C-alpha cells in the first residue's frame, strides 16, 4: 500500500504532463484550434491568394495588401469605423453609467436582480428584428417625427444617418454595457464610499474619486465590449446608417460581392482583427495598470 502511493507520487513528479488535467482541457484546446486558430490562419493565408477569372487561386503575393492599403477609400472607411465605434463606446458608457449606478446603489437587491433580468431579455430576440423595429420609430413619418410634429418640430431625417447608426449600436450594446457596469459598481466597497463622505466628499466627488476608480476595471471591460461589438457590426451601419460611406464590415460584404474578391475582404478582416486586438490589449493593460 505504502509502496504503491509512493510509486504514484514519483510517477506524477516524473512525467511533466498531468494526464488527468490534460483530458479535461483537451476539448477546449481542440475547439479553439478548430474554430479559432484554424480559420484565423486560413484568413491570413487567404490575404495572399489571387482571384483569376472570378476564381480564387492559391498564391503568395502581396498584391491584395498593396491594393487595399493603397486605396484612399479604405482608410476613410477604417477611420470612419473607428470613429463611430469610439463614439458609440463613449455614448454607451455615459448612458449606461447613471443607470448602472442607480441599480447598484439606489435600489434594493431584489429590484437589481429584476432589472438585470429585463436587461437580458433583449438578447432573446434577434438583433436584426430589433433593428428593423427602429424603422417604424425613426422614419420620416415614424413615431418620433409624429410626436415632434405635434409640437411643431421636424420632420427630421434620422434613418440613413450616423444618428441612425448610433441608435443601432446602442440597441446592440447598451443592455450589455449596463449589466457589465452594474456588477463592478455594486461591488464597490461601501466603506470606501463612507470614508470619502466622511472626509468631505459630496455625491459628485464620491462618484468621481471613489466609485469610478474602484469600478475602473469593470467599466473599461464594458467599454471594450461596446467597441468590439460596434466596430464589427454590419447591421446598424447598413440598415439604419444607409451603408454610405461604408464601414469596414460593409466593405467586406461589398468586396466579396463584387468580383468574388475574398482575398481582399480577408485583408480588411485581418486589419480589423489586429485593430481590435490592439484596442483590447491596450485597454486591459490600462485597466490593470499598477499605481506606483
Amino acid at each position: 500500500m505504502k509502496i504503491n502511493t509512493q510509486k504514484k507520487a514519483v510517477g506524477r513528479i516524473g512525467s511533466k504532463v498531468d494526464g488527468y488535467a490534460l483530458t479535461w482541457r483537451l476539448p477546449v484546446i481542440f475547439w479553439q484550434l478548430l474554430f479559432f486558430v484554424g480559420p484565423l490562419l486560413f484568413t491570413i493565408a487567404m490575404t495572399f491568394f489571387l482571384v483569376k477569372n472570378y476564381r480564387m487561386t492559391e498564391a503568395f503575393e502581396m498584391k491584395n495588401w498593396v491594393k487595399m492599403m493603397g486605396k484612399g477609400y479604405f482608410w476613410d472607411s477604417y477611420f470612419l469605423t473607428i470613429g463611430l465605434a469610439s463614439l458609440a463606446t463613449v455614448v454607451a458608457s455615459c448612458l449606461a453609467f447613471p443607470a448602472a449606478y442607480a441599480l447598484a446603489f439606489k435600489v434594493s437587491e431584489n429590484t437589481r436582480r429584476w432589472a438585470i433580468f429585463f436587461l437580458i431579455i433583449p438578447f432573446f430576440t434577434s438583433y436584426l428584428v430589433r433593428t428593423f423595429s427602429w424603422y417604424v420609430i425613426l422614419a420620416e413619418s415614424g413615431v418620433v417625427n409624429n410626436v415632434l410634429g405635434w409640437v411643431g418640430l421636424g420632420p427630421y431625417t434620422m434613418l440613413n444617418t450616423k444618428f441612425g447608426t448610433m441608435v443601432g449600436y446602442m440597441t446592440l450594446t447598451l443592455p450589455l454595457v449596463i449589466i457589465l457596469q452594474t456588477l463592478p459598481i455594486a461591488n464597490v466597497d461601501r466603506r470606501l464610499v463612507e470614508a470619502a463622505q466622511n472626509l468631505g466628499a459630496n455625491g459628485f466627488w464620491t462618484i468621481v474619486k471613489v466609485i469610478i476608480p474602484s469600478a475602473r476595471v469593470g467599466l473599461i471591460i464594458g467599454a471594450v465590449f461596446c467597441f468590439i461589438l460596434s466596430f464589427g457590426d454590419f447591421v446598424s451601419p447598413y440598415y439604419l446608417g444607409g451603408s454610405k460611406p461604408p464601414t469596414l464590415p460593409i466593405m467586406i460584404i461589398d468586396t466579396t460581392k463584387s468580383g468574388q474578391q475574398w482575398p481582399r475582404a480577408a485583408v480588411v478582416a485581418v486589419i480589423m482583427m489586429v485593430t481590435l486586438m490592439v484596442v483590447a490589449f491596450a485597454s486591459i493593460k490600462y485597466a490593470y495598470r499598477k499605481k506606483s
Partner: protein
Amino acid sequence: MKATEEIMGDMHQEPQIVFENVVKYFGDVAAVQKMNLSIQKGEFIAIMGSSGCGKTTTLRMLAGMETPTEGEIRLNGERINELKPSERNTPMVWQSLALFPFLNVIENVEFGLKMRGIETGERRRRALEWLSRMEIEEFADRSIDQLSGGQRQRVALARALVTEPPVLLLDEPLSALDANLVVRMQGVLSRLQKELGITFVYVTHSQSEAFAMADRVVIMSKGVIEQIGTPQEVYRKPASQFVANFVGSNNILSGSLQSMDGSSVTIDTEIGLVQANLPVDRACLQGSHLGLVISADAMSLSVDDDSSNSSRTHINQTHADQPSDNQFRCRLISEEFVGAMVTLLVETDSGFELRIQLFQKELDQIGFSESASNNGTFLWVSWSRESVYILP
C-alpha cells in the same frame, strides 16, 4: 444672531458634544435608546460594549452616517442631526481603515484637503507635514498595499487629522493589529490626543485599550448607557451588575442582608456569609437583596497545608498579618498565565466559582507553582471587608 447664540453657548459652557435623548431605530430594533451624553472639549472618551450594544451606531450618528430617530445631537452648541457627513468635520479612523487602494499614501492623506478645495501646493505641504509627524514621510509615494499594518494605521490617522478637526472619531482602529503593535499605537494615540488637545471619541470592545487611554469610559449594553465614569470608577465602583460583569476580572455575588452593625454588614450569599461595609449614603433593611463585587486582584491566597498542620502561608503580604474578614476554602480548577499575572479559577465548597488575580512573583513566594499547582488542590481564599463593593 448666530454670534449671540455662540456667546450664549459659551456662557452656558455647553460641552463640545451633546447627545440629548437620542434614540435610533433600525426598523423595529432600537439600536440606541434615550441616550444622554456630554463630551467636553479635549476629552478622550471611550465607548465600550459588546457587539450590537449601540456603540458604533453612536459614533456613526456623530459622523452623520446615521440620523437619529429622535432627540438631538449638538456639536459646539449647534444641532447637527440633519447635516450630511460631508458637511461636518468629524473625520473617522475606521476599523477597516478604509484607505483608498487606488490612491498612494500622500494622495490618501490629501483627500480631505482636496475636498475642501485647498490648492495643490498647500495641500501637499500639509499632507507631508502630517506624514512626517506620523514618521511615515518616506512612504509618501508608496501604494497602500506596500505598507505594513502599523504604517497603514498611521496613514489613516494622518488622513483623518490633516483637516485639523475639532473631534476625531475612532471605530476600533487597533483591532486588526497584533498585540505588540496595539500597545505602541495606544502610546501614539494618547500622545497625539494630548498634543492636539482635540476630542477623541474612541469606540472599542477592548477594556485594556479603553482603560489605557480614555479619560472617561462609557459602557453601553443593548442601546443603553450603563455607566459613564473614569476607568477607575468603572473598575472599582461599577454602577450595575452588567458593568461589573463586563469589566471582567470581577467576582459578583448576590445575597440578602443578614445582620447590620453600624456600617459593617453580613450578607448571606451563594458562598456563605460575607462581611462587608455598607456605603455611608446607603440605607438598607434586613433581608434586602444586595449585589456584591469583589475584584479578582483584591483577593489573597494561602495554601491549605492540612497534612503538616503548620500555619498557613499567606501570599498577599499586605494582608498577611491581619486577620481576614472573609475566608473561604476553595478547590483549584484552572490557572492561566499571562505574562507576570496569573489568573486562578477556584471553586468554593458550595460550588461557586471565584476568580483570583495575582502576580507570578507572589505565587512563587510560597512555592505555589511547584507544590500546589495540581488541579483539585485546596486553597484558602480571603479578602478584606473593605474590598467588597456593594452594587447600588
